[in-house]
């Protein structure tokens, strides 16, 4: 990517974060939709650890499994591959109908996800704003 130098890892990372947070929102929406479905086990999308690992991998581009492999440059490659893990949430008290959804914790997780999403969009907006200022040369 020729513009890699301008955007760096920030845009890639923030974009990936938005993508994963959007997916997490649909997982939480699914749990909330099934709050009354007997036998439903809630799940959550966990990805923060994976993102961190992907960033670390990018910092050391020489980490190739075989010496003759061509090293892929930059964190963007490994960032792109982050999918997030779907984990089952084991609630403390499961109802008699086998439904494990806890309304309160789902609402809490949803609020957190929403705030983090908005914060990420804000960061992305600031990044673009900075770039725009640099291009225009105005401050």
């Amino acid at each position: 990517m020729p513009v890699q130098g301008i955007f760096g890892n920030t845009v890639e990372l923030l974009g990936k974060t938005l993508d994963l947070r959007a997916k997490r929102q649909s997982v939480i929406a699914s749990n909330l939709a099934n709050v009354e479905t007997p036998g439903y086990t809630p799940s959550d999308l966990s990805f923060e650890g994976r993102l961190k690992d992907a960033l670390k991998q990018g910092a050391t581009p020489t980490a190739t499994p075989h010496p003759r492999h061509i090293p892929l440059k930059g964190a963007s490659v490994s960032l792109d591959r982050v999918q997030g893990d779907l984990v089952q949430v084991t609630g403390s008290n499961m109802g008699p109908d086998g439904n494990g959804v806890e309304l309160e914790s789902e609402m809490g997780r949803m609020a957190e996800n929403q705030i983090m999403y908005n914060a990420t969009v804000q960061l992305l907006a600031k990044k673009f704003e900075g770039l725009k200022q640099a291009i225009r040369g105005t401050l």
Partner: protein
Amino acid sequence: MDFFTSMDISATALAAERTRMNLISSNLANVNSTRTAEGGPYRRKDAVFTATPLKEGASFGAALSQATSARSVQVTQIKEDPRPPRLQYEPGHPDADPNGYVAYPNINVVEEMADMITASRSYEANITATQASKSMALKTLELMR
């Protein structure tokens, strides 16, 4: 970035909870109905909820929902409560049996009220989820300004 999937999921839940609310209203309304078209007293009805993957082609994000195993909810059956009718001694009632007992619907008003509160709470929760998805999507659009 696909918020329509989460909105679709929440929408199925709203529809399901509304169906349940209709059934609860119907149960409460018919708490004393001793005659029905099928004969006998009214029988309590309940919705059976089933977690289902979003329908193929229901939205652009259907494939995504399969990937993340996000599931919507569907009312798959409306079940009649098998509990026996409540018998009350009322010899003067036109529907009384030879022993003077009238078969009233197997409905417990307190139970229905509790169900109604749960239904309305989960309806609210799903509205909140829709609002969250909407505000996130709108926030993203701000990037284009």
